[in-house]
């Protein structure tokens, strides 16, 4: 099953599964098997933003006033988010595009990944403003043990799927020895790897950003690092859409609305899916512990942050048909909602430097009234 960039067979995408059917040929959206992905594309594109639109220059002064413990919290979170978006800016493309069979889903994944690259660029924008040379911060991401541990866990499901897909697309089904290790490649195994990978991505979008978001917005509650907060708000809005897309994929499978074999696998691997989710929750609590190792910050400590993670975990587990794990019923950080609400993100163009105000614009609508005071 070699991948082709333009499948010359006539295929009816209305009956193709989302993954592992025929590869896509025409990028057409006139007919869609799962129209939700086209709607998500439209919504995501309507949220387009550039990091440079947000003025972060005042943050430099604020940063100087933070305690060392707070500086550690702020910088560590940026490093972790940089890691997450480095992975998300490329992996959905590399892992999913070669096995996608629907044009609307293909374009959604490309749109999704593209927005993650905007997030990555915004971290450079933030750090360049804080340090004359931010390279030390970036260099630490690949050597910092706390970050590395999470990176391993996030990337392994992607890497597994990518490697198995490569074997399948070059050699087909079979058992292959590669570098002394045996790999059994069957369609069923591939689909299982895809299912686990999608669950891991879903947990990433659902949980992994939120400890960091909470710290950022806690600074903003104290009117500190507000440029950064404005950027993180835009990122959080995007991540909520990304999460919706993985929830849709998982639910389409589980409810038998796509590939019937994926419905079986969803049932068969339910415990593993749960485990993936709970591991992410556990790692985020560990991250909170690491953040506050030198002391907490005003309005936030390890305990509150951990219960917030449990609170959102319950909601996000329920969204993919997993039984909520934790006791907590009430939101321990109710002010977070103000920052995660889409209404509050939309600032008037004259208040922020929106790109469409930066470039010259032409009003193409001309009515006869425009010529009333015009004499020759």
């Amino acid at each position: 099953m070699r991948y082709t960039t333009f499948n010359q067979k006539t295929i009816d995408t209305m009956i193709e599964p989302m993954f592992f059917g025929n590869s896509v040929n025409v990028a057409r959206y006139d007919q869609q098997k799962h129209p939700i992905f086209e709607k998500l594309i439209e919504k995501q594109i309507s949220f387009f933003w550039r990091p440079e639109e947000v003025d972060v220059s005042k943050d430099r002064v604020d940063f100087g006033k933070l305690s060392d413990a707070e500086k550690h919290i702020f910088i560590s979170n940026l490093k972790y988010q940089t890691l997450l978006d480095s992975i998300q800016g490329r992996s959905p493309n590399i892992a999913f595009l070669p096995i996608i069979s629907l044009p609307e889903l293909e374009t959604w994944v490309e749109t999704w990944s593209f927005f993650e690259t905007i997030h990555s660029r915004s971290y450079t924008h933030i750090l360049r403003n804080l340090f004359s040379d931010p390279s030390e911060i970036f260099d630490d991401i690949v050597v910092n043990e706390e970050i590395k541990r999470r990176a391993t866990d996030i990337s392994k499901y992607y890497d597994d799927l990518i490697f198995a897909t490569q074997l399948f697309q070059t050699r087909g089904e079979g058992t292959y020895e590669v570098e002394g290790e045996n790999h059994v490649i069957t369609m069923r195994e591939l689909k299982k790897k895809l299912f686990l990978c999608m669950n891991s991505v879903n947990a990433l979008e659902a949980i992994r950003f939120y400890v960091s978001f909470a710290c950022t917005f806690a600074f903003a509650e104290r009117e500190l690092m507000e440029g950064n907060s404005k950027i993180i708000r835009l990122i959080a809005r995007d991540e909520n859409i990304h999460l919706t897309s993985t929830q849709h994929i998982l639910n389409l499978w589980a409810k038998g609305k796509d590939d019937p074999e994926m419905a079986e696998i969803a049932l068969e691997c339910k415990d593993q899916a749960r485990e993936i989710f709970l591991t992410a929750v556990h790692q985020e609590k560990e991250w909170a512990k690491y953040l506050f190792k030198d002391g907490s910050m005003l309005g936030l400590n390890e305990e509150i942050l951990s219960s917030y993670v449990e609170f959102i975990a319950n909601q996000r587990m329920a969204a993919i048909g997993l039984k909520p794990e934790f006791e907590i019923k009430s939101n321990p950080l109710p002010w977070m909602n103000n920052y995660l609400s889409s209404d509050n993100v939309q600032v008037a163009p004259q208040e922020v430097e929106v790109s469409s105000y930066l470039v010259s614009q032409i009003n193409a609508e001309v009515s006869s009234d425009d010529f009333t005071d015009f004499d020759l």
Partner: protein
Amino acid sequence: MKNSLTITDTTRIKSISIGGKVIETHEGESVLETLERQNIEVNYNCREGFCGVCRTKLLSGSVDYRIEPLAFIDDDEILSCCTVPTSDISIKFEY
């Protein structure tokens, strides 16, 4: 004229029952806004129908969507942030 019927319908005061409480809607309010006015804690994030955090079980009654929901919702669920009751409704938070 199904549309005009619906419009007349939504302007009438409806009731929302939740956890043994019955509350009255105000004109034009979303279910979420009605609950907030009564100081009932509701989960939400985006308030625009795409994150799904305000997903609520609809036990009885019917609603109209003000914006098309993008979040995943099951057949017996609604998004409280972008729905308006079109009859008396009964809802339940699941988590």
